[in-house]
């Protein structure tokens, strides 16, 4: 590594590309249904007529921007623009509801830039050693990681554990519909062609989160979000102070995001959820997660942005892409004749380092751009009359869902899930546990089946599931997450009993 690649990355043309990429990515990411994968897939041919490093900078910038853009819809419409932003809705939307949407958007921007920097720096300095993390994670580790993720349901469903668990179980059942990923069985389709593709996560997100918001917007006469008359711009100063106070949360969440990002098959949504769960577990007593706690947004957004850099570590070092966008960048690299693998950093070093520097530059550019776009996004969502907002968003949900894989079935499934989500919400069932089950179900199932197959073949089932150090650590975290709140609740109850 030397600085000549940094200078190479800093040409005006490359900076212009990074600027364009971040803007385009943010806009794409903010629209539910339009994903970074799609934007990248369309733009890859550009890399053929361009200097490879420049083209890669463009692709990296779009990816970074898209992950951040997902936060807008999460905060302002309670709809994660990308799966990575699921946990952003938990506190982001409550903040927007009470009139702090501008603050939430600015916080998300600071956290994303911080997380993105941590991930990119890890990629720059620690890629070869960190890539071993990807290999240390076997089927059983993925199984326990998803169980850990599911344990979040307990802390998410404040006081309504049974309903939360029922939602999670329902989500896991939904995840089994269609052609099973590894066993190739066709399950629970009841002979219907509509269901053969299963319940896609992005479509389910749009249905379960966005449709109920739309129905409520029509059903309730109030304004969409509370607006304070005197506030004219995004509260950058407040947000910066809050971010500074939460530096430990930001660092921890970014490290979690980087590490989870390295695991192929986990991704931004799991990273955001794990970081959120850790932030909540270590919360101070006055912090109310789930009711508009700024730390919740910062944990999720820094973690999911850190997965961008983290995800490129196995992609570049091992040639194993962690996420679909990584896979597309890997494809672009292969067509350019770059051979991935441990030798890549020495053989094709200049392209790779220029790309990493470009990713860093794009992340830094995201700060001004994100704040600027955030301001307009907030203002337009707040000031737009309901009569315009509802049809616009409604139209977007349908187009967005259809565009995932040009499938009308997906649109039908999305609308049905939306109405279903709205109805069960009347009875106290939240959308998040269902979505958690839908995302984590397949990871848990595959990990379990593979772990069991290997364990049975080697006559060591118990050791397979409980004897491996990483598994034990994840299991311990899960138990702490599950049991600690119960003990704390009992203690505070005792204290209250003693006082009265």
């Amino acid at each position, binding site marked *: 590594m030397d600085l000549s690649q940094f200078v190479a990355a800093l040409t005006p043309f490359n900076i212009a590309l990074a600027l364009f990429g971040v803007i385009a990515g943010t806009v794409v990411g903010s629209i539910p249904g339009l994903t970074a*994968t*799609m934007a990248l*897939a*369309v733009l*890859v*041919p550009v890399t*053929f007529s361009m200097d490879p490093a420049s083209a890669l900078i463009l692709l990296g910038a779009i990816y970074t921007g898209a992950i951040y853009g997902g936060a807008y819809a999460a905060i302002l419409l309670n709809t994660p623009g990308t799966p990575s932003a699921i946990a952003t809705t938990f506190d982001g939307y409550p903040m927007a509801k009470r009139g702090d949407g501008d603050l939430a958007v600015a916080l998300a921007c600071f956290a994303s830039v911080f997380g993105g920097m941590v991930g990119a720096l890890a990629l720059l300095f620690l890629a070869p050693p960190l890539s071993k993390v*990807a*290999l*240390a*994670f*076997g*089927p059983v580790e993925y199984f326990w990681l998803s169980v850990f993720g599911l344990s979040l349901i307990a802390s998410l469903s404040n006081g309504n554990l049974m309903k939360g668990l029922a939602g999670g179980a329902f989500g896991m059942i939904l995840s089994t519909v*269609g*052609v099973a*990923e*590894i*066993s*190739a069985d*066709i399950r629970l389709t009841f002979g219907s*062609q509509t269901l*053969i*593709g*299963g319940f*896609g996560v992005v479509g389910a997100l749009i249905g379960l989160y966005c449709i109920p918001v739309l129905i409520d917007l029509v059903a309730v006469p109030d304004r969409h979000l509370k607006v304070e008359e005197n506030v004219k711009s995004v509260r950058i100063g407040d947000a910066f102070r809050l971010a500074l106070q939460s530096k430990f949360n930001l660092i921890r969440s970014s490290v979690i995001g980087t590490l989870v990002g390295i695991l*192929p*098959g986990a991704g931004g949504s799991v990273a955001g959820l794990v970081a959120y769960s850790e932030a909540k577990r270590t919360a101070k007593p006055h912090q109310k997660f789930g009711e508009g706690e700024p730390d919740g947004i910062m944990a999720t957004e820094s973690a999911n942005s850190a997965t961008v850099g983290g995800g490129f570590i*196995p992609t570049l070092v*091992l*040639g*194993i*892409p962690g996420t*679909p966008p*990584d*896979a*597309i960048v*890997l*494809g*672009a690299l*292969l*067509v350019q*004749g770059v*051979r*991935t*693998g*441990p*030798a890549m950093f020495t053989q094709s070093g200049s392209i790779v380092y220029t790309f990493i520097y470009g990713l860093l530059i794009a992340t830094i550019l995201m700060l001004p751009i994100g704040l600027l776009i955030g301001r307009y996004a907030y203002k337009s969502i707040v000031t737009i009359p309901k009569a315009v907002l509802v049809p616009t968003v409604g139209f977007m949900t349908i187009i967005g869902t259809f565009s995932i*894989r*040009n*499938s009308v*079935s997906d649109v039908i499934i999305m609308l049905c899930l939306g109405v279903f989500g709205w109805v069960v919400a009347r009875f106290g069932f939240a959308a998040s546990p269902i979505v958690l089950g839908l995302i984590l179900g397949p990871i848990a199932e*595959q990990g379990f*089946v*593979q772990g069991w*197959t*290997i364990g*049975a*073949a*080697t*006559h060591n089932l118990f050791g397979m599931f409980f004897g491996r150090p990483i598994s034990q650590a994840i299991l311990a975290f899960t138990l702490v997450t599950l049991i600690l709140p119960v003990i704390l609740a009992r203690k505070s109850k005792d204290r209250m009993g003693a006082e009265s």
Partner: protein
Amino acid sequence: MLKRHFLQCAAAIAIFANVGIASAAELKGPVSYVIPFGPGGESDISARFQQPFFKEKFGKDLVISYQPGGGGAVGWASLNGLNGDGHTIMGVNLPHIIIKPAQKDVGFTTADLNTFYMFHYTPDAIVVTADSPYKTLADLVADAKANPGEVTMSGSGKASANHLAQIKFDKMAGTLTTYVPFKGTGAAVTALLGKQTKAEWGYTTVGAKQGDAVRMLAVAMDERHPLFPDVPTFKELGYDMSGGAYRGIALPNTASAETTKMWSDMIGEINNDADFRKQMLDGGFAMLDVSAEDMDAFMAERVEEYLNDAREAGLIK
């Protein structure tokens, strides 16, 4: 850079030489190339390799998009509903399009698909890590015979090319190995490199991608792969195995005979480009040239072979 200029010149010459032929003229705009899987797999990579050659030879963009779902079934079931004017094509994979419809009604049959060219295949291969105790195929067979079931082998999916190869090989060698299905080749390789399994049923492309990190014990080809002159074929070692996962491209069945012919010629032209072939072979792929007129015979042969294998393996009734 020089190479790119050379390619542009070559493309220009090719276009001038083809002026009299109507083939390229029938394409009015960009072509949508649908991959019925997610990005990053062998189908995606080979399509990405075709993309620049198509643009250079025929002057139109090939726009790749992904429609994953149902192990490809979502895409293939939708293919014949798409416009057949030649501006939409879709990748097809063997054995998927043969095994899937034989298992259950998945919205398409093998015969429904208007496959006009099979352009490559990834030969089956047994892959182990560089530091594995299995130095040769014989080592693995010996271990599998001494410890029935304890040799675990990762692979991509069930009822897939990898799985069929495992079953077939076990039968030939008289061994009992344990097949562990993963979601795609990438995950199966990760499991191998992380030593979760003792070996992998993969393809020659894995050997090309992972380089020194892995060793291939044998490849299922008639002759050795040019990229791996030191890796024996199964046939050399006494196992009559040759084949793998075949990939091609299909049009909606509403496409006219002329359109199908045009596409078959175009993909054939790319396939015979020396630079394209080199890129594919360097990636570990094996070339295949089955054009539209030979497709029916080729498919009939494969259908019989795969259905027999799958029936014997108990994967279909």
